[in-house]
């Protein structure tokens, strides 16, 4: 293994590379290859419910000849899966836009606050992130449900005569996602807005630009990297979200993370669950690659 670290190096140096490397090979790459393999295998009604994993190298080679695209064909033949994918992408997209609309003024206000306030506000944004995700989603159930706090408050204030049905709808899922991921939107936005040189805005206003024009022409374009970073930090985890649609949405709000969960835990169909996982990853890899390309172009340009 001496050739692994070029330029030799001590035993300690080699261990520093090898230990995390082997760990990730064993617990990240190998598991994913298994998913890939099972996604191409046929259901065998036995425990475990799929054809046996390789016993030897020959078995791997032998298996390659029996690769089956049956699971993937099935995914495309049933509307459930396609709808789940489209639904997930749509819900994640709408939530990202709402989070941006709420997060941008928040971040801008923070960036324009005094230095003492900034640290306090920044801590206030980060703090919910350290609080349990599950508990923050749970907190909304008591507020949104039909006999919940929001309806009780609105009814007693006389603003509505019938309770609003929000719990177990797509609206509740939007609220849950925006609420849970808002800090991820605000932090990169704040980072890019804070760096913004105030003298640029002064120059714009000295040259006669009204505050709104200065915002559109100076602030917004310069904060574009923050917008992109924040949006991908919300969009990517939202696509694969399971907890929020499960707790706040009804069964009709199908998102792909939930479909995978049900295939695995309820239908016990491991090959289909694996195929769903592989396709979900593909759905996510495309925006990530686009983002990286943009980031790289930004870095060199």
């Amino acid at each position, binding site marked *: 293994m001496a050739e*692994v*670290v070029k330029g030799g190096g*001590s035993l*300690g140096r080699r261990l*520093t*590379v090898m230990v*995390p*490397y082997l*760990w*990730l090979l064993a*617990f*990240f790459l*190998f*598991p*994913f290859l*298994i998913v890939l393999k099972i996604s191409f295998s046929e259901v065998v009604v036995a425990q*475990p419910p799929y054809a046996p994993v390789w016993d030897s190298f020959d078995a791997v080679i032998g298996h390659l000849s029996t690769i089956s695209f049956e699971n993937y064909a099935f995914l495309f033949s049933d509307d459930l899966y396609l709808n789940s994918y489209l639904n997930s992408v749509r819900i994640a997209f709408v939530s990202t836009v709402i989070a941006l609309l709420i*997060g941008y*003024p*928040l971040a801008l*206000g*923070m960036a*324009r606050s*005094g230095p003492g306030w900034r640290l306090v506000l920044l*801590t*206030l*944004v980060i*703090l*919910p992130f*350290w*609080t*349990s*995700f*599950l508990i923050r989603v*749970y*907190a909304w*159930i*008591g*507020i949104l*449900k039909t006999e*919940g*706090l929001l309806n*009780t408050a609105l009814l007693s204030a006389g603003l509505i005569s019938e309770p609003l049905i929000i719990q177990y709808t797509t609206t509740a899922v939007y609220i849950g996602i925006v*609420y849970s991921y*808002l800090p991820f939107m605000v932090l990169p936005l704040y980072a890019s807005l804070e760096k913004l040189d105030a003298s640029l805005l002064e120059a714009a206003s000295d040259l006669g630009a009204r505050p709104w024009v200065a915002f559109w022409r100076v602030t917004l374009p310069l904060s574009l990297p923050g917008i992109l970073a924040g949006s991908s930090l919300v969009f*990517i*985890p939202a696509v*694969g*979200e*399971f*907890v929020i649609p499960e*707790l706040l949405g009804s069964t009709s709000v199908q998102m792909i*993370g939930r479909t*995978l*969960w049900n295939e695995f835990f309820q239908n016990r169909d491991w090959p289909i*669950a*694996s195929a769903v*996982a592989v396709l*979900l*990853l593909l759905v996510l890899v495309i925006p990530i690659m686009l983002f990286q390309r943009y980031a790289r172009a930004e870095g060199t340009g």
Partner: protein
Amino acid sequence: MKGPGPALRAAMIAGFVFLYAPIVILVVYSFNESRLVTVWGGFSTKWYAALWQNQGLLDAAWVSVIVAVTASTLATVLGVMAGLTLARMPRFFGRTLFSGMVLAPLVMPEVITGLSLLLAFIAVSLDRGLLTIIIAHATFSMCYVAVVVQARLAGFDRSVEEAAQDLGARPATVFWRVTLPIIAPGVVAGWLLSFTLSLDDLVIASFVAGPGSTTLPIRIFSSVRLGVTPEINAIATILIGLVAFGALLWSLTLKSALAARARQQSGA
């Protein structure tokens, strides 16, 4: 800088109310006498007392603490190694694969991580239990630690380490006496982050947990599915209190460290 205008100020207040109102409501209603979530029946701490009678919940909390402490410690050791590798070893065989494997878990949906680890554990016939949860949590947490440590090292001048080496320090000594103190804040932050992630994880643990290793989030989730209960509000409040306490402690240490540095600089 003239500060935020009235419109921005209003938007900020609305934003923070949105962020904190649900948490505040949850905490307030954990002290509600009534079992109904929407009716205020007077102040009471009976749901906290009820927690001590709920053996299942206590067991789950204990499992979660054991898993979180072990997994975050393991993740910190592995993550520091990975971070050092990424920051200090510009080329070795398979570096691209390595950095890809460090970054990928950060964007991997939890359902995929959980499913793939479970299938791998079954493939090598490793029984599901505490060990499998610890391995799973250590694996994704180490990536966060690696990124934090790498960022910390990237901002640091390498020449300090080289100077120590030139003065005859052995690599291990350089690590313990020079590099580790530099990255110490990152290591602490990484451990805390791993601890929180592990304590909070529901999805991955649900896949890899065995019958005897129910963690607190799994337990909470199964009762939340049946509806809102004041007992869950009480345990949520305890968890929120712990986080608030930790944050307070952290900001106080940060403040005193900043003050000490300011004193040092003004003294010099």
